[in-house]
C-alpha cells in the first residue's frame, strides 16, 4: 500500500505530533507516529486497542511520550498549561462529578479556565448540547448520553479553538447524535480544530473531512478518505453495476486487463478492478454495443468501513 507524500501533515497545524512512541513495559501502545491537526474535523480512527486513546492523551499532555514530542500552538502542553485557554478535551471515561448538577459542572469548568466566563456562557454551552432542561438535576441521575453531552458542554464553555474528543458519541441516542454531529460541523466551519477519535466508522464518515487511521499503534493511513482508497493501488476496487443484461456486460468487461474478477448478483454484477476509471470509460461503449441499459455504476468499497478493513488487514 502506498500513501501520498505526507498526508498525515497539514500546513496550518495547531497540534503537531512528531515521531511519538509510547510503551508500557514490553507493550508498545503507539509506535513512531508523526501527524498534525489543523482547522476542520479530523477523525482519529482505529479498532479498539489501536493506540488512539494513548495518542490523544499524549497530545493533551496527560501522558508523556516515551519518544518524540507533541506541541499545541507550538508549546508542550505538559509544560505550558496556558495552552488550555484555547484547548478542551472530552475524555472517553465518565469524567464527571456525580454530586454536581450539569450547570454546576459546566460552571466549575468555566471557573477553572477563565475569570471572564459569564453565567450566560454557561447557559449557552448547556443549550448547545440540549441539556438546559436537565441542567439542574444531579449528574448521578443522568444517562450515559446525558453525561456525554454534559462533558461536551463543559468543554465548549470557554469557546476553545481546539477540541479533542475521545468517542464523544458513545451512549447518545440517534437524535442527539445527529445534533452533536451538526454542532461539531458548525464549529469546524467556524475554523475550530476538532479531533474526534472513534471506532465507529459510520460516525467518522459522517463527521470527518480528514482521517488518521491507526492500527496496532502505528499510523496506517492519513488524509482524505477517497485519496486513501485511491492510494491503495494493490487492492482492487469493487464496483457495483446494475444492468438488464448482466451476463453480456460481464463477458465484455472480462476482456479488459484491469478487471480481475466478476461476481454475478441478482440484479447486476460486482466487478473487481485495479483501475476504476478504465471500467468507467469503457462502460458506455459496452452499453451501446450490447444495447444494454446500465442503471447503476458505483464503487462499493470506498466507504470508510471498507477502507478501514483493508488497512487493518494490510497492517497485520
Amino acid at each position: 500500500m502506498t500513501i501520498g507524500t505526507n498526508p498525515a501533515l497539514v500546513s496550518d497545524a495547531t497540534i503537531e505530533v512528531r515521531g511519538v512512541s509510547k510503551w508500557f513495559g514490553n507493550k508498545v501502545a503507539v509506535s513512531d507516529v508523526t501527524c498534525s491537526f489543523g482547522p476542520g474535523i479530523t477523525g482519529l480512527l482505529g479498532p479498539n486497542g489501536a493506540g488512539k486513546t494513548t495518542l490523544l492523551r499524549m497530545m493533551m499532555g496527560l501522558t508523556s511520550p516515551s519518544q518524540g514530542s507533541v506541541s499545541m500552538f507550538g508549546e508542550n502542553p505538559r509544560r505550558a498549561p496556558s495552552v488550555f485557554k484555547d484547548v478542551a478535551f472530552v475524555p472517553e471515561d465518565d469524567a464527571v462529578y456525580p454530586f454536581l448538577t450539569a450547570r454546576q459542572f459546566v460552571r466549575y469548568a468555566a471557573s477553572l479556565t477563565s475569570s471572564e466566563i459569564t453565567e450566560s456562557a454557561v447557559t449557552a454551552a448547556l443549550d448547545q448540547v440540549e441539556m438546559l432542561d436537565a441542567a439542574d438535576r444531579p449528574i448521578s441521575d443522568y444517562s450515559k448520553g446525558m453525561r456525554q453531552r454534559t462533558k461536551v458542554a463543559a468543554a465548549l464553555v470557554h469557546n476553545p479553538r481546539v477540541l479533542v474528543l475521545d468517542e464523544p458519541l458513545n451512549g447518545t441516542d440517534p437524535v442527539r447524535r445527529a445534533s452533536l454531529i451538526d454542532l461539531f460541523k458548525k464549529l469546524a466551519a467556524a475554523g475550530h480544530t476538532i479531533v474526534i477519535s472513534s471506532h465507529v466508522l459510520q460516525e467518522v464518515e459522517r463527521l470527518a473531512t480528514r482521517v488518521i487511521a491507526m492500527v496496532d499503534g502505528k499510523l496506517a493511513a492519513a488524509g482524505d478518505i477517497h485519496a486513501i482508497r485511491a492510494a491503495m493501488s494493490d487492492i482492487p476496487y469493487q464496483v457495483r453495476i446494475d444492468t438488464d443484461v448482466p451476463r453480456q456486460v460481464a463477458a465484455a468487461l472480462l476482456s479488459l486487463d484491469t478487471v480481475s474478477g466478476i461476481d454475478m448478483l441478482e440484479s447486476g454484477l460486482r466487478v473487481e478492478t485495479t483501475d476504476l476509471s478504465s471500467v468507467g470509460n469503457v462502460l458506455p461503449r459496452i452499453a451501446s454495443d450490447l444495447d444494454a441499459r446500465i442503471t447503476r455504476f458505483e464503487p462499493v468499497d470506498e466507504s470508510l468501513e471498507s477502507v478501514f478493513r483493508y488497512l487493518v488487514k494490510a497492517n497485520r
Partner: protein
Amino acid sequence: MIAFRAIFAASLRQLFTKKRIIGFGLIALLPAVLVALVPSTDFPADTFLDITTETLLKLIVPIIAIVLASGVLGDERSDKTLSFLTLRPISRFTIAGGKIAATASAASAFAAFGAISLGAAYALRGGVGGPTLALIVSGVLSATLYTAFVTPLGYLTRRATILALSYLILVDNVVIAAIPAMASSSPWRVGLAGGAGLLPPNFRTAAALDAIGTLEIGLAGAVVQVAGTVGVLTVILGLLLSRRDNV
C-alpha cells in the same frame, strides 16, 4: 484565586458526603461519650487530657484526616476526573493548594467537632477550667499536618490509607513514643504542643503532656512548623501533578 476557590469548594462537596458526615461525626463524638461515661464524681484535668490524647488526638483525628486525604486526589485518579483539573490553564500548585486546603478544612471540622463535644462533656461533668479552645487548636493543627502528608501520598499510590495508618500505628505511636527526640515527626504531638500553650493552668502538669517529647509548648512554633510543612508539601504535590502521568 477564582480557580483556587472553585477547587476548594468542589473538593469540600466531594469530601463531605452524607455517609462521611454521619460516620466521622459519630466517631469524633466517641471521646465525649467516653468522658460522659467515666464513673467519677470529680473529674480531674489529667484524666480528661489522657482520654483526649489517647482517643481524639492519637487515633480519631489522624484516622479521619488520613481517610479524607488519601481519597481527595486518589479518588480523582480512580474516577478519571483528574484530567478535568489538570487540562486547565491553571498552575498545578493551585490544584495542589486547593486540594490540601479543602481536605485540611474538612478534617479540621471533624477535629473541631470532636474537641467541642469533648469540652462540653468535660463541662457537664463539672470539670474545672475551659480546655476547649486548646483542644480545637491541637485538633486543627494535627489534622492539617496529616492531610498535608497524606494528600500527595494518595496521589502517588492507591495504598495511601494503609501506608499512612501503618505509619500512625508503628512510627507515630510506637517508635516516636520510645524516642522523644523524634516528636517533631509526629503530627498529633505537634498539634498537642501547639494547643497545650492555650490550656488552663490546671492542665499544664498533666502526664499526657509528656507525649510531646522534646517539642516546645507554644502555639507560634507549632503554627510555623505546620505552615512550613504544608507549604513544602503543596509544592511537592504541585510538582508531582506536573511531572507524573495522570493516568
